[in-house]
């Protein structure tokens, strides 16, 4: 990118807008408390989110702060989904209690038990909603409170930039070379 273009890019958004975005981003990314969820509910939802995207040899829902994204979603643009969460979690808890009668919570289950619970609920509407939120929180813009340190983007190989220069991938690079450009 030449200097003129870079200047133009910065100029187009305006310095005020950039600082505003940066501070909103920082605030969202550093949340450690909940606005809508109770800490107890949050721990249970977090256990489900971490089963959908586990922390294994790469970061998962926990490292991305997905639970803080979900709390923020239910506080703001998806506040009308609170009932769906309340009812959905009640149903999941009933399923847990029937499969594991001696258990006290989802968070206290072993990872294997959590996976078994997930298989029991993966056809439900609530699973679809939860999975949607987990993916938005893992791979959506960090300004919404998830995707912390861009761990989701790094995992899938997405680089967020305002400008790229071709070639973009292996095959167009090879074709360019063949064409002698």
């Amino acid at each position, binding site marked *: *990118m030449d200097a003129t*273009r870079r200047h*133009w*890019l910065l100029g*187009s*958004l*305006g310095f005020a*807008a950039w600082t505003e*975005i940066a501070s909103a981003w920082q605030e969202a990314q550093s949340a450690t408390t909940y606005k809508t969820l109770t800490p107890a509910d949050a721990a249970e939802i977090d256990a489900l989110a971490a*089963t*959908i*995207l*586990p922390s*294994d040899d*790469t970061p*998962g829902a926990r490292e991305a702060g997905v639970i803080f994204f979900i709390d923020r979603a239910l506080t703001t*643009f998806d506040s009308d989904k609170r009932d769906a969460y309340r009812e959905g979690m009640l149903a999941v808890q009933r399923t847990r209690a029937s499969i594991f009668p001696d258990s006290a919570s989802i968070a206290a289950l072993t990872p294997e038990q959590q*996976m078994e619970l*997930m298989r029991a609920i*993966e056809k439900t509407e609530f699973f679809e909603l939860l*999975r*949607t939120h987990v*993916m*938005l929180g*893992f*791979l*959506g*813009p960090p*300004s*919404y409170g998830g995707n912390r340190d861009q761990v*989701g*983007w790094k*995992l*899938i*190989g*997405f680089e*967020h*930039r*305002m*400008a*790229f*220069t*071709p*070639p*973009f*991938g*292996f*095959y*167009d690079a*090879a*074709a360019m070379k063949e064409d002698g450009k």
Partner: protein
Amino acid sequence: MSSVTYRPSDAVDFLIIGAGASGGVVAKELSIAGFSVVVLEQGPYLHENDYRHDEIKYTYLPGLTNDPKVQPITYRKNENEPAKPLKAIEYGRQVGGGSVHFTANYWRFHESDFRERSTFGDVPGSTLADWPITYQDLEPYYTKAEYDLGISGLAGANPFEAPRSKPYPLPPMPVKSSGVLFERATRKLGLHPFPAPVAILSRQYGDRPACTHCGFCESFGCEMRSKSSTLVSVIPIAEKTGRCEIRPNSYVRKIELDSNGRVAGAVYFDAQRREILQRAKTVVLCANGVESAKLLLISKSSRFPNGLANSSGLVGRNLMWDTGTLAQGLFEHPLNEYKGIQVTRVIHDYYQADPKRGFYGGAGIDARFDFYPASFALFGLPPDAPKWGSEYKKMLAEYFTHSMSLLAHDSSLAMERNTVTLDPDLRDAWGLPGVRITFDYHPDDVANLKWVLARQIEILEAAGAKKLWAQPWDAFSPSRHLMGTCRMGNDPKTSVVNRYSRAHNVPNLFIVDGSNFVTAGRQQPTATIQALAYRAADHMTGAAKRGELS
């Protein structure tokens, strides 16, 4: 911003309803011809500084499109089943309309598109008809649109394209890995790939800079002004004349008819929901193939008890759908398809309907990638892939950068039973009737969708995909190409507007958008919508100068 303000009580020469792909063009043409113009737009007036690379705002939430929470829509397959709330149709809802957030594919129709009833014959159960105009009638206006807006492409590269009077004003965009793989595979199969014509600037054009390949075209507004929406191309020219006022947040509830059977203006809700009557000598309805029909159906009077300009009973009928199948493939090396515009190569080999196939239909096929990170995680993996867990994560990490799609753009037959009607049970946030969509495929559409999907699979195989998969042919997705509901024709009994997009029954009312389409072509309707708009504006200018409109 507009430099002129008109008083609603003073009749302007032209009142345009809708500032989208067609409304923006008509506004520019009429205002530079010297007429006073007011444009009423439902949505806000946004600019490049308002846009973000925000996948949640523009794909999960209706950041730039109609919001069914305030403008409810219901859908049913046929009139025997109950209509259920569903965002079955989607349109751009801001100044610039759909031209702001579209993928920017910019195909001209072929010569054959205008004469398929004559060349293919009758298709029982459909209302397949010839257009009242030919490709040659529209050619000068396609060219004008390409030069006014800024289109990139390579003339002559598509052996099936209709004759053109001028090349594209800008060279094609750089080819992506999907385009390279597609080009090799289709050539191997004896087909004819060509660079996608797109409404995106490959070079600086006027005061607008070249595309920076950020990858956020489809569903997003362009922060660079490099996507050639009407918002950044023709609307600023209209405003500069000092004769055109764009009025955003202005939602029309009725077109007014006077006692002589001529329209006198339109009543709209302003941002504070006050009702205002803007008077006009001529009304040009450019609200899109669903909203235009809706407004006509709402605008009833003793002269037009079934809706304005609806003596034929065809307003809202013959709705054609945004059809096409998606097939995907995984490759050995990274493609990084998220970078750059969505589409760089296309074929039109299967475009023309061929009776030998045993059904009516055809398609264009493009190589593309129009997923963003979260939407890929939700919808981009093969149907048999796990939906969660460590294996799922591993697949995401590989597939996002190593896969591409082929999207087909299929024909959609017009049928009178596919309709836009007013939902009797639903009201929007302003108290207007909600839209009810009734749509189901013609059997030939189904046969065509399946046949074309098999062609897509062949191409992916020839491209060397190490795994390939397809979405089911009948996977429901909302229609963004809204066509057919105010059909163009010579006979007032079988069409709503004449060959110049002028209402048959109301001399000073024009309807100019996708609703005019007699056939759906092979989707990608924007170029044809805009060519029709240039042509209609030419006719309006002539009619006004002859004194027919005052």
